[in-house]
């Protein structure tokens, strides 16, 4: 053993360089800058901040814009047909990676290319919606972060009922052309029915259907549940104002609504998701394949509550709820 050690050290010392080469610094200057195609499912107003955080996180890891990385922004403004168009354009441009968010865009991107890596910052249920083969091994060219919005539907409904325990008929507002939204709606429907609530599910196919949907449920429902979709996120103001006008307690999935006057929201931390997406992009740019990068589920959820909105509705947010809240708008 001793002899082997000795020989080993001798040989090893000969084999190793006298100075340890420092591991390559974070920044790896490529020959030419990599091109990231940002398929913005919504618009700059609703998503700009989150993509900024994405870019910022990449910079922190050594990807300096215009030096070794270039971003191509395309905003689809929640128009489904544009997802495919933008994806096709990215393929033509031969981008090195497509970064996007939400389920329908990923579906469109996957249809456009099966070789260019796709990273999604959020998707409600990637396995069920066919974005990946499994969470631990996505298998294809897409990977990203799950939001478990369908799973957390139960929590949101629970929170709504805590504020307004008297709810008997719940209107589940979902953008019907979004498969993730419809899946979430289905889950919410099941939860509500288990609780013995009646469920209303107006069909919303486009932005023009939003107001009519409100009108449809105004007199009927005593509580609103909004399913996440790109369409709704680009129309936050409208939706909140309609909800306030309808004087209905509503639960949302992101605090963006609560900031604008929504009553209560519970959902994953969007910034954290976009930052983590940047880290996945960094991995892929350094050589990992999307097929081997597991999809991560959220660990951080943000509960936001608006006491003013509660007061306007004539309900009181219970103390226990306020205890849990991460963000309170007054």
């Amino acid at each position: 053993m001793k002899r082997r050690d000795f020989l080993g050290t001798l040989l090893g010392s000969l084999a190793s360089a006298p100075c340890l080469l420092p591991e390559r610094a974070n920044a790896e200057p490529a020959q030419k800058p990599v091109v990231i195609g940002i398929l913005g499912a919504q618009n700059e107003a609703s998503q700009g901040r989150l993509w900024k955080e994405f870019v910022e996180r990449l910079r922190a890891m050594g990807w300096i814009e215009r030096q070794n990385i270039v971003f191509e922004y395309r905003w689809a403004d929640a128009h489904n047909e544009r997802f495919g168009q933008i994806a096709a354009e990215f393929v033509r441009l031969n981008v090195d990676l497509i970064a996007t968010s939400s389920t329908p865009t990923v579906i469109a991107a996957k249809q456009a290319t099966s070789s260019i890596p796709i990273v999604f910052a959020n998707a409600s249920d990637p396995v069920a919606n066919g974005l990946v083969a499994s969470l631990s091994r996505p298998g294809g060219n897409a990977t990203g972060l799950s939001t478990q919005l369908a799973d957390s539907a139960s929590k949101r409904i629970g929170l709504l009922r805590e504020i307004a325990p008297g709810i008997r008929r719940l209107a589940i507002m979902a953008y019907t052309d979004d498969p993730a939204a419809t899946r979430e709606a289905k889950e919410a429907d099941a939860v509500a029915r288990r609780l013995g609530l009646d469920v209303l599910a107006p069909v919303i196919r486009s932005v023009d259907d939003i107001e009519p949907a409100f009108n449809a449920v105004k007199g009927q429902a005593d509580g609103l549940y909004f399913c996440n979709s790109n369409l709704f996120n680009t129309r936050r103001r409208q939706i909140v104002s309609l909800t306030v006008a309808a004087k209905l307690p509503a639960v949302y999935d992101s605090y963006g609504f609560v900031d604008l006057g929504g009553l209560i929201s519970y959902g994953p931390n969007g910034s954290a998701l976009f930052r983590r997406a940047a880290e996945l992009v960094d991995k892929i740019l350094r050589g990992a394949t999307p097929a081997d990068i597991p999809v991560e589920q959220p660990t951080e959820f943000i509960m936001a509550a608006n006491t003013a909105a509660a007061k306007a509705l004539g309900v009181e947010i219970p103390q226990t709820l306020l205890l849990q809240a991460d963000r309170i708008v007054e």
Partner: protein
Amino acid sequence: MTISLQSDASKAGSLSTRTGVSIGPRRKGRNRLFSKYVALFVLVVAAALLPNGIFEILFYSRDHKAALIEIQQAQAIAAAAKISEFIKEIQNQLGWTTQLPWSSGSTEQHRVDALRLLRQVPAVAELTLVDPTGHERVHVSRLTMDVVDSGLDLSNDPKFTEAVARKVYYGPVYFQRESEPYMTLAIAGTRKNTGISIAEVNLKLIWDVVSQITVGKHGRAYVTDAHGRLIAHPDISAVLRNSDMSTLPQVRAAQESYSKSDVPDKASIIENREHLIASAPIQPLGWTMFVELPIDEAYAPLYAALWRLALVILAASLFAAVAGVVLARRMVGPIQALRAGAARIGGGDFSQRISIKTGDELEGLADQFNEMGAQLQDSYADLENKVALRTAELSQSLEALARQHQNDNRNIAWLRQLAAFLRHEVRHPIARINSSIEIAALTSPRDTQLKLHLDNATLDAQHVWNLVERASQATDAEAFVRQGKPERIDLGRLLSECLEAHRQTSSGIGFQLQALDGVYVEADATLVKEAVSNLLGNAASFAHPDSIVVLSLTREGEDARIGVLNRGPTIPGDTDELFSPFRSTRAGPASEHQGLGLYLVRLIAEYRGGSAAIANLADGSGVEATIRLPLASDYASSTQR
């Protein structure tokens, strides 16, 4: 110290016959000593350094390795402790939820407690509060709505039973959706009526702890559960990929060591081609903390030290080589000077003086060489003088001899002239005397008295003629002999040739040859044959009939001895007289040639520095004639019998 070679001008000139060639002949030995010394020096230094170096390497590497292992093991234990801490912290927090005893109105309070815990402990994804009877009372979660008093009976569930029995229950690690690692942690309150709290802990949050554990520069720490599944790793993707590490040697080794050792806290360590891996158990969870350090980094200080050592040894060797060269030159220089000087002296240049002033034995040796050179010079000078003297003497003798020879030649020439003159002049008178005698005889044919006197007169006249003739022949003989052209001849062969000739001409007499081989002389072959023939002829004439004439050839000292022995009448009186040219022969007036024959033999022998003699045999049975001739020069000096 000075070393130099110089010619000593004060002494006589050198007897240099081969100086130009002498310096060079031994090229083979050149510079051998020098390189030997240098090599030896370097070797000695290297031999001194190398074992030292090797020992250093050995011990340093051993110590380094031991220290490294200790550090790594300590790190593993510390890291394991961190994980334990993390879990224990969750436990502590959970403890707050089991403070409250269960009563009818306390459910809401419990719920608030539970919700608060969710806020305070991000790692807990779900929390179930169970009353002492084993029924679920409160269930809060991050994904689902709160459930209160569901009535779920967990009294037979190990989570409940174990927690009640041992106060804490650590469930196995399971992977939600085969991706996210979770574990169940259940604790019981201090009092019996507080029930238990069951938390589902999201182990992803150990990631923070694990990723902050720094192992050197490039090392990392990771955790596996009891089955070898990876549950924490700096790269979370590795965990979420649900990696089964149980086949890795370090995992297996760790599990083996735990199953064997009674001391669960002991850390173990294993080394493979790339990493040094220390592991420590995380009790009581049954997990294992691995701390991995790349071999390169682990041994970097060692390698650096080795390189330094190698450089030092190299530098020292170089220095030794340089110093060796310098020192060897100083040592070898005088030796070289000595060699060159000795070569010169050996070559004959005795005037060379070697000057070495090193103050040691080499200087002494140089002095001795110089002395030797001086002595040689002296003796050579002596020799030269002696040689010169001898040469002078020799040339004087030679001159005398030459003069003598000239004289002899002149004498002989004069004698020949005289003889020839006499012969020429006497012929006529003798002829006239003969004719007068004839006429006188014719005038008185009947006077017998007169005829007697006339016959006597004729005989005497003939005798006079014979004498003159013989004198003439004698001088001829001298000249004849002097004409001889000497060459190196094999006497043995020559004698046998003579004998053959005589066998053919003489009958009734036997001839026998007793000759040694390889007897060489310098003489004219014809003359020697003539001499030997003469002796043989004589012997044959005087030998008893049917006796044998023995011709022998031997060596006597520096001479070759030819003997011709015959049985017959002995010779009376002085045998030496027989060789005189002017002596009558024994046979009679008719055989004039025989009279000169022996004289010729003596002439021939003596001309070559030899001799001729005749002696009676001791027993008086016969006579032996001998010729002695000096042996040919190189033969004479090389053999001795």
